[in-house]
């Protein structure tokens, strides 16, 4: 048993209170600790990815209590990939927050940031459903603080909506967990997966309700239509670096759906049959369409980006809801892409806001520093809309390819392709209004000289995210074969189950029992 896998959760959990207690008035020291913590996280997660890259599974029993009784932390290739993605994204988002001085505009930004990371990484690594709930709450309560960072009325009002929506989601989560426990008597994922197969065909009511409730909870997180209403205003009003970090939060919902609905309630399971193919795919297709139509209809740039996040989550969910190894492999590739692209677009939106003063999609006086920002917006829009040469195009191609043998292939192809066209038009419209349709050719406003102008570090952070996106495109073959291997492993759990359930620990020694 290795202790390394618990460290991505413990490190931010210790660092955050340390920063609050010792350095709360020294932003410089906070920055140093925060950056050092995230660099450490990246090193840890690279180590974990390397350790499981041969297909093995590593796990950790908290206090050595054996699996169905105690909580286990499990790392396989899927969860370590998500951990790596989170910590790399966090590094660039933090660099941007420092470069644009967003972290100075309110208190405890860095501590909340670390708590947020702790929650997200814990949700990816845990092997216990109730523990997943606890980590969801950790990441949510940190996100409430980050969401209203720097204050302002519009932001607080959006924050109220965001908090209330997520509180209802948490309540639903608890109802689902209660029903699951009442039906099966366990909350450990591996144990649960084995017990639901023992439920007779005539007693499926309770477990079906629990499975649907759980799907609703994860769909709220993943902003699947019709549960997406919280996303546009909260993401648009949140501070830009926070919104960029939130790009990974919708993926937590997608990850949870992949994990729970391939392991505990797989499509071939009899007691929950009809759930996967009947509801999930149509809902995903509708969210893809609504997201991209929202891109075309948005009147402000930040709402436009928020709707493009809904659209890209719809795309991810389309691929997931086909539930084949090749489609989930494509979904994982697209998840990495859409996290990076969404974060890039939110950060660029912030650059536009600083240069232009407003995000309304109407003609305004020309802004300064346009060529750099416009060029980056162009590239980010290409990535998000899924045009060649960036990885969005390859991701969509993989999803379309994976959908080829499905019954609903006509619908998938039609909606994916037409929504791509709509989003291209939407992004082109927004870009041309913001960057080309300036009022007059002369600068009618004085170039802003205030200190809140983003520094070179902010541009470098966005450039770093672009470099990752390009690398994701160049090494698409390697990444895609890796994600496909992950997806195949998801449909074959034997090594995971035997490792978690049959390894002796306190209270349980399967070898002695036999």
């Amino acid at each position, binding site marked *: 048993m290795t202790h390394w896998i618990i460290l991505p959760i413990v490190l931010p959990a210790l660092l955050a209170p340390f920063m609050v207690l010792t350095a709360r008035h020294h932003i410089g020291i906070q920055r140093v600790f925060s950056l050092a913590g995230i660099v450490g996280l990246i090193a840890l997660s690279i180590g974990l990815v390397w350790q499981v890259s041969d297909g093995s599974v590593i796990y950790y029993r908290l206090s050595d209590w054996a699996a169905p009784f105690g909580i286990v932390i499990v790392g396989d290739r899927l969860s370590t990939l998500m951990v790596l993605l989170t910590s790399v994204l966090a590094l660039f988002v933090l660099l941007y927050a420092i470069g644009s001085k967003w972290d100075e505009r309110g208190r405890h930004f860095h501590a909340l940031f670390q708590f947020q990371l702790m929650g997200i990484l814990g949700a990816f690594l845990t092997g216990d459903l*109730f523990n997943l709930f606890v980590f969801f709450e950790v990441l949510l309560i940190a996100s409430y603080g980050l969401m209203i960072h720097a204050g302002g009325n*519009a932001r607080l009002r959006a924050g109220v909506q965001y908090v209330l929506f997520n509180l*209802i989601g948490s309540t639903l989560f608890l109802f689902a967990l*209660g029903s699951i426990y009442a039906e099966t008597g366990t909350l450990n994922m591996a144990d649960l997966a084995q017990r639901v197969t023992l439920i007779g065909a005539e007693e499926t009511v309770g477990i079906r309700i629990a499975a649907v409730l759980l799907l609703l909870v994860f769909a709220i997180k993943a902003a699947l239509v019709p549960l997406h209403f919280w996303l546009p205003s909260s993401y648009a009003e949140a501070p830009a670096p926070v919104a960029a970090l939130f790009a990974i939060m919708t993926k937590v919902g997608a990850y949870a759906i992949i994990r729970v609905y391939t392991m505990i309630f797989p499509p071939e399971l009899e007691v929950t049959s009809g759930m996967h193919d009947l509801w999930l795919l149509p809902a995903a297709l509708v969210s893809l369409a609504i997201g991209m139509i929202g891109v075309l209809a948005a009147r402000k740039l930040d709402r436009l980006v928020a709707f493009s996040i809904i659209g890209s989550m719809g795309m991810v969910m389309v691929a997931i809801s086909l539930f084949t190894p090749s489609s989930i492999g494509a979904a994982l590739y697209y998840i990495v892409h859409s996290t990076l692209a969404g974060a890039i677009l939110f950060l660029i939106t912030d650059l536009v806001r600083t240069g232009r003063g*407003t995000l309304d999609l109407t003609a305004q006086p020309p802004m300064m520093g346009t060529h750099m920002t416009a060029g980056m917006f162009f590239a980010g829009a290409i990535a998000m809309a899924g045009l060649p040469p960036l990885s969005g195009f390859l991701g969509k191609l993989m999803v379309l390819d994976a959908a080829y043998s499905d019954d609903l292939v006509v619908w998938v192809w039609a909606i994916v392709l037409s929504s791509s066209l709509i989003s291209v038009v939407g992004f082109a419209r927004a870009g041309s209004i913001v960057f080309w349709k300036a009022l007059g050719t002369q600068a009618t406003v004085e170039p802003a000289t205030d200190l809140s102008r983003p520094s070179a570090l902010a541009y470098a952070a966005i450039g770093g995210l672009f470099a990752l996106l390009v690398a994701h495109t160049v090494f698409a073959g390697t990444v895609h074969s890796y994600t496909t291997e992950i997806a195949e492993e998801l449909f074959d759990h034997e090594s995971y189950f035997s490792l978690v359930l049959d390894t002796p620990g306190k209270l349980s020694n399967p070898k002695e029992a036999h």
Partner: protein
Amino acid sequence: MELIVASAIGVLTAAGIYLVLRLRTFPVILGMSLLTYAVNVFLFASGRLTIGAPPILDDAAITYTDPLPQALVLTAIVISFGMTAVVVMIGLGAYLGSDDDHVDDQPESDASEERP
């Protein structure tokens, strides 16, 4: 006893959902509290209802009650308590700032105002 517990959960949930669908912050927060009470009782009941039985090992005991839901409820109570405090504070801040405690989106004209 099953009937009483079940109908209590039902009434709490129904009242909570009704209040959550209101338009102003205060009833919505009250509704959220009722919903969390309902879910706490529900979690208790998920380990089956047993009267007068110990949850931990005891030589004299004939039957036991399930200890796990009690631990789960404890966690859920702590979390929902903290969350309610957070939402009260944010709601209060939003109300004092904009002199308006509606939870829906504000009209478009206000939304375009300058943000810091």
